[in-house]
């Protein structure tokens, strides 16, 4: 019995957790905060829906490393997002810029909702 237990527990003791994750080190906490908010706002180009923070696809790893480099180099959030979207398209930004057809994207649902509401209330009054 004890022998069995020793064998079982030796599995736990001898197994070393594999830390595959890259550890990013920053000069200050602001950089760190910016890095983590940026990688959660950049879409993984290889995934159906997910940020590069949530993805371990090779291209997401490259993107995270690039964002890390740029944050350390002192680029602004805007510059980093432009850098990424120049390469991977507007699709890469989870918060699309307020311009062009994106107005429809941002305000379309509200316009639609108000039209529906208007219809609903007008109909009741008749």
């Amino acid at each position: 019995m004890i022998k069995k237990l020793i064998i079982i527990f030796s599995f736990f003791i001898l197994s070393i957790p594999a830390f595959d994750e890259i550890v990013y080190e920053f000069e200050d906490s602001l950089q760190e905060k910016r890095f983590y908010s940026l990688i959660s706002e950049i879409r993984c180009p290889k995934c159906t829906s997910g940020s590069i923070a949530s993805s371990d696809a090779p291209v997401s790893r490259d993107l995270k490393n690039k964002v890390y480099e740029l944050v350390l180099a002192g680029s602004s959030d805007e510059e980093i997002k432009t850098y990424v979207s120049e390469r991977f398209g507007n699709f890469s930004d989870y918060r699309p810029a307020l311009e062009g057809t994106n107005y429809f994207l941002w305000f379309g649902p509200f316009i639609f909702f108000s039209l529906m509401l208007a219809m609903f209330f007008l109909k009741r009054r008749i």
Partner: protein
Amino acid sequence: MNQFLRFLIIFLPILIFVFFAKVLLVDEDIKFSNFESKSFPEFQLNDLNGNPIQAKSLNGIKLINVWASWCITCLVEHPFLTKLSDTNIQIIGLNYKDSDTKAIAWLQKHGNPYLFSIYDPRGDLAFDLGVTGAPESYLIFDNKVLAHIQGEMNQTKWDNIFLPLIKKARQGS
């Protein structure tokens, strides 16, 4: 007011219908392609044999195909690329995150449809091009990227996306 309401009741569903029809009826091949025109990024890389690549070798109409020896789908599109290379289309390979020995062995085994292959083991040029994996293909015309597709290249995509653009580029020049 009543008339306006009646108009809305008819008009809104039509609007929704047209919107979804437009979204759904676009050819998938075209929907997932990127036609944003941008210039080909600058790079300093060698080909698979270790010779530096001259910028002028990318002039004219070229198909850039991202491939790797570890890439399964690349094997699927390989016969089509081989067929294509027999026509007057010049294909340049972009060997992506691969080792040169494996890549060269792969080409020896399966045949080489490429004029030459750019050796990009870290994926630097690929990153600047916006490559998300392999295979992907780019149509370039005098250092300008005209189209970008992700996934396998095949006859349908070639006919629907690339041929019209090539015709247009040839007419323009």
